[in-house]
């Protein structure tokens, strides 16, 4: 669905490569989280999928990015938006309308879709994003989480197969952030939309994503199913990337030889780990080391 073939890119007026030698493939229906320190090239990578690079930000582009079989360099942002929906950090500066339904119809009108079909797609997008009740609300009166779900609905109204999101929850409170992630999960599971999200909140990423990509200094340095990336929690901490606390706990339990299974991604799974140990059902039980710092 998305393929990076040895891609490197440097922005205009910059000597340094923002991303280098990227080779990756993202398949249909994946839910991919991209993490890494700031300046690692996460946003650059996303901008190559929706065509913002090289069509909005210019620079030196090497290699090729294929999205649904199209070379993004040959295509345009507008054409790509039928395949890739985009959501950015600040909902305020993405919303162009004063009423929710107008905002969602905006993209459809731009593509000259007849009024009757707009109506159907508008209703569909509202339902998919779970915001039917907000349809007639004024966009200015919404909470941050609601605004961000409106921008998601506006993006999926164009029926893209892929949704890319650049730190969509950085300005939201915990409830708003979770609402956004829950909406994304629904879009992914029920409608098969491929989701690629850049985010600092590792806890939410590990709970919701099926795959994690870790970037540093323009490269992808780790890429795999969420659980196997979390195995390398020591390396993540070295890179300055936070680990969910339940992972830290599980690691301590592993060090004490109380647990040899995989890492939990949410609190439910962590509970299973701890219960397993407490009830002595864990078969590899050994005399533990008691010293934990």
């Amino acid at each position, binding site marked *: 669905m998305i393929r990076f073939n040895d891609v490197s890119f440097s922005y205009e007026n910059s000597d340094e490569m923002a991303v280098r030698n990227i080779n990756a493939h993202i398949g249909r229906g994946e839910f991919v989280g991209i993490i890494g320190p700031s300046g690692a090239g996460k946003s650059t990578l996303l901008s190559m999928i*929706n*065509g*913002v690079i090289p*069509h*909005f930000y210019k620079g030196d582009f090497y290699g090729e990015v294929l999205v649904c079989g199209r070379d993004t360099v040959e295509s*345009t*942002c*507008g054409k*790509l*938006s039928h395949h*890739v*929906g*985009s959501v*950015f*950090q*600040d909902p*305020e*500066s*993405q919303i*162009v*309308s*004063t*009423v929710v339904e*107008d905002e969602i*119809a*905006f*993209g*459809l*009108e*731009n*593509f*000259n*879709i*007849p*009024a009757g079909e*707009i*109506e159907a797609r*508008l209703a569909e997008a509202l339902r998919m994003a779970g915001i039917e009740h907000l349809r007639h609300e*004024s966009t*200015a*009166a919404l909470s941050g989480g609601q605004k961000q779900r409106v*921008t998601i609905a*506006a*993006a999926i109204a*164009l029926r893209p197969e892929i949704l890319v999101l650049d730190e969509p929850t950085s300005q939201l409170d915990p409830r708003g952030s979770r609402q956004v992630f829950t909406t994304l999960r629904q879009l992914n599971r029920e409608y098969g939309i491929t989701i690629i999200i850049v985010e600092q909140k590792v806890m939410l990423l590990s709970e919701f994503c099926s795959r994690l990509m870790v970037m540093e200094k323009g490269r992808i340095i780790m890429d795999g199913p969420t659980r196997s990336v979390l195995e390398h929690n020591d390396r993540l901490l070295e890179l300055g990337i936070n680990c969910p606390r339940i992972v830290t706990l599980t690691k301590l339990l592993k060090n004490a030889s109380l647990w040899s299974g995989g890492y939990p991604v949410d609190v439910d799974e962590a509970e299973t780990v701890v219960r397993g140990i407490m009830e002595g059902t864990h078969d590899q039980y050994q005399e533990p080391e008691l010293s934990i710092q």
Partner: protein
Amino acid sequence: MKQMLEYVHGNSLIHRLNPLTKLIFAVVTCVACFIGSNHLFLLGILLFTIIIAGASGILGRAAGVYKALFILGLFLMLFQLLFTPQGRILFYILPGVPVTDIGLGFSSLLMLRMMAALAPLSLMLMLTPMNELLTAMTHNLKVPYRYAFAVVTALRFIPAFSREMDQIMQAQRSRGHETDTRNPIKKIRVIIPMCIPLLISSVRKVETMAISLETRGFCTGPRSCRKKLGFTLFDILAIILVMAALPVSIIIG
């Protein structure tokens, strides 16, 4: 000032009018105000806009606008008073500064005209969703979409920038920056720490918006329109009523 431009959500008869009707109303009353030079006529127009605000249920919000207009008008009037020495002296506001009958008449007319001309424009913006205004401008008035969008977005961004400015001002005041000074030279120095952050954050906002538009097919070709903005009987009545005000203003004025 920001509430002068922001749309107030509602579903009154006037809210549902064709935006073009509202635009015609605003422009015609504005023109009428400049043709008519009769206190009563201008007061009448002002009263009429208040009735409209009341009928559309936004009197509370409009009150703020009228207050702002009144203060602005008062300044204008005072200024004009001081520079109109002609006529019979009525009284002195300050020793050596007389108020004349001509001065009073003229300056109060100016004040009323300013208020009566701006009120309908601000009312139109408060009662019309930007998107509808945009549709009316592009489909009915054939303004190119790109330009109409720019105008409407600029209007929409004013309140956002004003909020941003508040934030910046507060951030600088927290660092001991005194923003309230009367000295005009100091005033310029006071403004710099606020203008630069505003400029930078606006540029960032506009950039995000440009990208967001780009990824939603903005101006990629012909554009469709979800809402057909029809003219109802009420629209036609309203337009006739407003149009009638024009000759009346010429007669009275």
